[in-house]
């Protein structure tokens, strides 16, 4: 049905031509579900754009081509392509909210496509659009027709995007990271929906993702890409059990899954023994009745509703829960960046909640509590080089200057595995993993006792995530810090943490040792979270109890 032959795509850029796709070939049969996996920048998206001929200005198909049902997609006229897009081949994209025109009613956006492809007339467009919305199982479709994207949740937006893509009954659906940016539970619901539709209608599909686990769960065959080339292709189970290419091996290893140790995420040659960390019996931090209420536009928002927990010296505590449950709010309060509405934060017996956040910057305990942020890019000052960023807390809190400061920065860079020559670079000149290292180096610079990690790996590729997680584990062992590790990914938490707290809607619903919570979840919500995480097809994995998720 679709055959790609030595496709090469290049972009004109400031510094000459960049080859984004360097000659890839694969075939897609009718009804087949293909997965394309690879790390960021490997050319997955560009491949799909090239198929649709919607490359950005400056991009062109340099060589090779693609044939879809006998039509040469490279040579076809623009009007032919317009007919193909949406009617024969459809795409859905990541970040559904941004993928919809913000100022047009979603119903009209669906109509636009229907009318474009003459699948509807002015009279029946509305009715067909509603039918398309019903097909993606949106509740109350007729009412949603009138909605604007901002009035819908992320999951609903993605359903609308899917409705647009499938409105004209295409034969091939390309989904480019359709669930990035969605909540883990929503992700599952959306993927199940797409998969259901694809199967029901007998479509071919291409799922582009960097999550090997996700791909293997929803695809018949997986293509692994690296640097614009296909390095390996095959059935999911085969890839997982017997990867041929070292890169595939690395990806497989790095994918967090049950029953592996944190070191096992790394490539075999990097698996040095992990020094054990010691958990002291005395509590480092005691949180009592911690509450935060925001004055929202439409009434108060109870972001955190009276949390109680304790963190011991040397202990790593995981904090999990879906988006908006109050994880970041909790960590900000603990980091003393945000004033609590009520409650106590006892740090070695001293109540930090009584010190206003604005004054805490100059408090001696400031150096004892540090934090690593979710978005490494956002957390680095774009005007400061890596070195300046790392040096900042040292200058402010330790008073180091001159050569001593430089030496300490270099030491921290070594500790976090940041090559020294990168220290001069600005954040935009660093990769995601490197930025994460700068963020970690900066946080551990004043040698804190307590480190809060707010989803430090959420924006990273799995292989980099693996490295960062191991780095954190090493640092903990070396420096004896305590962690509060915030994440929505239970698999990751299990690797790094001793203890886990599950939050929902601002409340702690379950807490306990990792092994207990993961293996015998007491609260149904914890079970939801567990089942939503994509599972790699590891041969020896015992079946998890199947839990149906509610439709969004």
């Amino acid at each position, binding site marked *: 049905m679709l055959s790609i032959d030595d496709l090469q795509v290049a972009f004109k850029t400031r510094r000459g031509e960049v080859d984004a796709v360097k000659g890839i070939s694969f075939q897609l049969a009718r009804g087949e579900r293909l997965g394309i996996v690879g790390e960021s920048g490997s050319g997955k998206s560009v491949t799909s754009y090239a198929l*649709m001929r*919607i490359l*950005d*200005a400056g991009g062109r198909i340099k060589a090779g081509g693609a044939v879809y049902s006998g039509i040469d997609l490279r040579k076809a006229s623009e009007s032919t*392509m*317009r*007919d*193909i*897009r*949406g*009617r024969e081949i*459809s*795409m859905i*994209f990541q*970040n559904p909210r*941004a*993928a*919809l*025109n*913000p*100022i*047009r*009613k979603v119903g009209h956006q669906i109509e*636009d*496509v229907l009318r*474009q*492809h003459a699948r509807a007339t002015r009279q029946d467009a509305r009715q067909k659009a509603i039918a398309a919305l019903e097909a993606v199982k949106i509740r109350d479709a007729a009412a949603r027709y009138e909605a*604007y994207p*901002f*009035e819908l949740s992320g999951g609903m937006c993605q359903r609308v*995007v899917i409705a*647009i*893509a499938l409105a*004209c009954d295409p034969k091939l659906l390309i989904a480019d990271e359709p669930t990035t940016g969605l909540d883990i539970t929503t992700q599952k619901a959306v993927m199940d929906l797409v998969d259901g539709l694809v199967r029901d209608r007998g479509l071919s599909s291409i799922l582009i993702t960097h999550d090997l686990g996700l791909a293997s769960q929803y695809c018949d065959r997986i293509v692994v890409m690296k640097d614009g080339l296909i390095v390996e292709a095959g059935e999911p189970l085969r890839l997982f059990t017997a990867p041929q290419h070292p890169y595939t091996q690395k990806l497989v290893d790095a994918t967090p899954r049950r029953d592996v140790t944190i070191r096992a995420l790394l490539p075999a040659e990097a698996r040095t023994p992990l020094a054990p960390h010691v958990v002291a019996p005395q509590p480092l931090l005691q949180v009592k009745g911690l509450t935060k209420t925001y004055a929202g*536009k*439409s009434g108060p928002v109870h972001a955190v509703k009276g949390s109680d927990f304790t963190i011991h010296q040397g202990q790593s505590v995981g904090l999990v829960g879906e988006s908006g449950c109050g994880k970041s709010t909790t960590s900000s309060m603990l980091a003393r960046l945000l004033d609590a509405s009520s409650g106590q934060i006892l740090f070695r017996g001293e109540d930090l909640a009584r010190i206003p956040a604005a004054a805490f910057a100059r408090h001696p305990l400031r150096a004892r509590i540090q934090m690593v942020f979710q978005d490494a890019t956002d957390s680095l000052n774009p005007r400061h080089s890596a070195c300046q960023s790392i040096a900042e807390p040292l200058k402010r809190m330790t008073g180091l200057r001159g050569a001593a400061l430089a030496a300490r920065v270099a030491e921290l860079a070594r500790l976090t595995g940041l090559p020294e020559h990168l220290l001069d670079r600005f954040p935009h000149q660093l990769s995601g993993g490197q930025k994460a290292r700068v963020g970690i180096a900066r946080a551990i610079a004043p040698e804190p006792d307590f480190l809060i990690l707010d989803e430090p790996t959420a924006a990273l590729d799995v292989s980099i995530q693996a490295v960062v997680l191991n780095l954190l584990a090493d640092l903990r062992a070396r420096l004896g810090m305590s962690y509060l590790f915030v994440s929505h990914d239970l698999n990751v938490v299990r690797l790094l943490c001793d203890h886990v707290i599950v939050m929902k809607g601002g409340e702690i619903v379950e807490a306990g040792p990792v092994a207990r919570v993961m293996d015998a979840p007491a609260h149904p919500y914890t079970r939801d979270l567990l089942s939503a995480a994509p599972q790699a097809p590891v041969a020896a994995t015992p079946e998890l109890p199947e839990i149906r998720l509610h439709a969004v």
Partner: protein
Amino acid sequence: MQGRWGAVSGRILQAIPVLVGVVVISFLLTRALPGDPAVQFAGAMATEDSIQQVREALGLDKPLPQQFLIYVGQLLQGDLGRSVSTGQPVAADLAQRLPASLELTLTALILSCAVAIPLGILAATRPGSWIDQLCRVLVTAGVSLPTFFTGIVLIYVFYYLLGIAPSPLGRLDFIYLDPPRVTGFFLIDAALDGDGATWVGALKQLILPAITLALFTLAPIARMTRAAMLSALSADYIRTARAAGLGRGKVLYGYAFRNALLPVVTTLGMVFSFVLGANVLVEKVFAWPGIGSYAVEALVLSDYAAVQGFVLAMALLFVLLNLVIDLAYSVIDPRFGSAAQ
């Protein structure tokens, strides 16, 4: 919908302190003007006594706070006072002259939009190309010219040398009679009256001053259109639309341009109020009987009531303009006034 009206009425409330501030500042500013209006208006051969008489007649012998209270009291009754130099109530003067300025400004803006927006779109669809650079240089050249200089050069070339343009004598050549006043906009009034000749006559008079002003406003509009179009075109929803096979026109105008319109409308508002101020110079060059020339005259003569009235009228216009922009926003952008924004 409720959110929108809430936002609009919120704007009206916000305007109140602004108007109060404008009243106070304009009062103080006029009093700070050099020159004694009493001397000015007492006439050529005034003696001490007659100056004093005039001062009392104008109420300028009273202490400042009292003058202010009197002024505010009058304002509250809707009385803008009387211009000493024209001898008319300021409100009447403004009502007479405002349409002239508005007609000129709006024509200039329409002209400017008609050129700048397509230019901006063109530049945005080919960023970095020579067309883009040329647009940038052209519109920048336009905004770099002092308006009075442009005006004079245009008059010199098109009226004096070539004789194409009509004499730069205000809104209508004297062979025509003013159309019966309905809106005060000659083009509209003449059209309503069905008087084709007068309409053409009024249009001819408008062209040169409108071009002068339009040249000056091309740059902000074109630049903003370009920037907004660029960011709209790079947005994800454009990719979605293209991937769904929508036609080029639909994508460019139906999707990208409508989104780009939001910042363009904001810019238009700013340009409008800016141009109303810049009118001062153009009106002088083209003998245009607008409020700009009125303001200059009043300022030079220290005609307190006229200056204050003018400033207040402009402030009201500004507030009104912001409301119009908000309304335009709420029409274009459904998010307006909702919590999501």
